[in-house]
């Protein structure tokens, strides 16, 4: 077993070596511009791009022509939301989204709202982090032009009832955008069955390269149109100008193909490891609380709050394991995770959270090591915690008058 261990697979995935192998010829040997229609270099590049487009479309049950390449999911989210608003703004400017979306969605709609270009309804989620489809229905007004709800959350892994939301969107004739960055490649996605009109996802979250993503844009029932957010050569059927990064796209395609072929076995393996990690930690450490949905969540996700210890110090005590925390001390804003807050998790428990993200290349040995380390450090830091001491003495921490600073 090699240290450090990577258990932060929601932030990114290591690239699969098989993906790299397919990319390599497209840097030096087959370097053509896919938009060059007049020579063999261009044709080779175009062929590779179209092959990748098919592989990607197949994974999400779409038509290859519905895939628009972007630089990543953030760009896809921006393009979907701004592109729809600009195209259909005359019909209305109301957008419905949820409070646990990724910031690429939340900040985009807030920016539009701030500029007076849109009005936004941000739906609350339940204690598991799930959007209630009926809340979506009730939020719809005659001015609503877009619903944007994520497939699976990046912190707590909770999977939203996307199919039900898609059904409501269809019923009301409103476009449905889904940020599926964490879900595609990890759980089955079917844009037809789920009633999705626009969907953002990214290669590096499914063992592909960084720097490339896609926006699925529905072509039929209805035909969705968006206004490009970048002017230029009119690539990607006019929706996203810019020379295509052929090697990245080739890698994206291969990565999707591998996900499709291996998803069933990989999911079973990840769930077994994740559940073992969860059970062992929970059994050994009292007052550990699971954040997110107990069952309906991403296979590799585990988010736990350890009462009386602070998240950043936990991470510091496990330097040889790459993890993430919802603690304010790990964020630029000094605010604890807004996702955990949206679930109703108290601020103090939000500060105490750790996110474990398991992926394709984690091993049982690594999980054993992590279990041991987590128990060790939480125990050590609780010994050091005045809050734990008070709780053990029977002091109700809620009744203490704290001097907030």
């Amino acid at each position, binding site marked *: 077993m090699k240290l450090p261990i990577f258990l932060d697979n929601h932030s990114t995935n290591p690239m699969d070596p098989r993906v790299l192998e397919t990319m390599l010829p497209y840097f030096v040997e087959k370097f053509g511009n896919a938009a060059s229609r007049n020579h063999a270099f261009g044709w080779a590049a175009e062929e590779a791009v179209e092959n990748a487009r098919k592989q990607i479309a197949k994974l999400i049950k779409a038509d290859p022509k519905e895939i628009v390449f972007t630089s990543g999911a953030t760009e896809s989210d921006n393009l979907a939301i701004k592109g729809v608003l600009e195209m259909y703004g005359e019909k209305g400017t109301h957008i419905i989204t949820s409070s646990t979306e990724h910031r690429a969605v939340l900040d985009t709609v807030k920016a539009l709202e701030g500029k007076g270009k849109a009005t936004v309804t941000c739906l609350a989620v339940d204690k598991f982090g799930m959007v209630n489809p009926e809340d979506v229905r009730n939020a719809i007004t005659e001015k609503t032009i877009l619903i944007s709800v994520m497939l699976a959350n990046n912190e707590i892994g909770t999977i939203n009832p996307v199919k039900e939301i898609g059904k409501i969107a269809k019923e009301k004739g409103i476009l449905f955008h889904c940020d599926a960055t964490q879900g595609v490649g990890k759980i089955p996605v079917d844009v037809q069955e789920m009633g999705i009109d626009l969907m953002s996802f990214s290669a590096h979250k499914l063992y592909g390269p960084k720097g490339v993503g896609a926006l699925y844009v529905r072509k039929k029932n209805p035909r969705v149109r968006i206004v490009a957010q970048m002017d230029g050569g009119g690539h990607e059927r006019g929706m996203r100008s810019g020379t295509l990064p052929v090697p990245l796209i080739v890698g994206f395609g291969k990565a999707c193909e591998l996900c499709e072929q291996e998803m069933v076995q990989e999911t079973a393996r990840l769930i077994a490891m994740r559940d073992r990690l969860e059970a062992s930690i929970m059994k050994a450490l009292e007052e550990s609380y699971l954040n997110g949905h107990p069952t309906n969540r991403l296979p590799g996700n585990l988010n736990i709050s350890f009462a*009386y*210890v*602070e998240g*950043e*110090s936990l991470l*510091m*005590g496990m330097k040889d394991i790459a993890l993430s925390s919802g*603690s*304010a*001390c*790990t964020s630029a804003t*000094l605010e*604890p995770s807004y996702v955990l807050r949206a679930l109703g998790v*108290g*601020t*103090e428990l939000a*500060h105490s959270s750790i996110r474990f993200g398991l992926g394709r290349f984690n091993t049982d040995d690594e999980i054993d090591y992590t279990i041991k380390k987590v128990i060790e450090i939480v125990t050590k830091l609780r*010994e*050091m*915690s*005045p*809050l*734990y*001491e008070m709780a053990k003495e029977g002091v109700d*921490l809620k009744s203490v008058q*704290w*001097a*907030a*600073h």
Partner: protein
Amino acid sequence: MAYSDKVVDHFNNPRNMGSFKKDEEGVGTGMVGAPECGDVMKLQIKVQNDMIVDAKFKTFGCGSAIASSSLATEWLKGKTIEEAQKIKNTDIVQELNLPPVKIHCSVLAEDAIKAALADYQKKADGPATDAK
């Protein structure tokens, strides 16, 4: 975020971690911060003849908060009450090489020192003002 070697050292080998009994003679206890802010420090001093002979801490917080309070106990030991009053958060920042986002940890440590000293004084003056 990269931590300075001194922060890492205090975090891995905290000095004087633990508690005195609050009602023990000569013990002053300061508790500052709040759980919802992500840090709470408890700092205790044991005083004999105006001299701090021992100090202990317990901290809920990030590595820098733990290091700041650990360092504070080290500095307090052997100081008189008057000398202890002069410990400034900026001294802690300098010693531990704290980045700007962690300055509040040093402020909290200074507050904890002040609170422990005040509690000791209050207890020392106790019988006169706090007759039951």
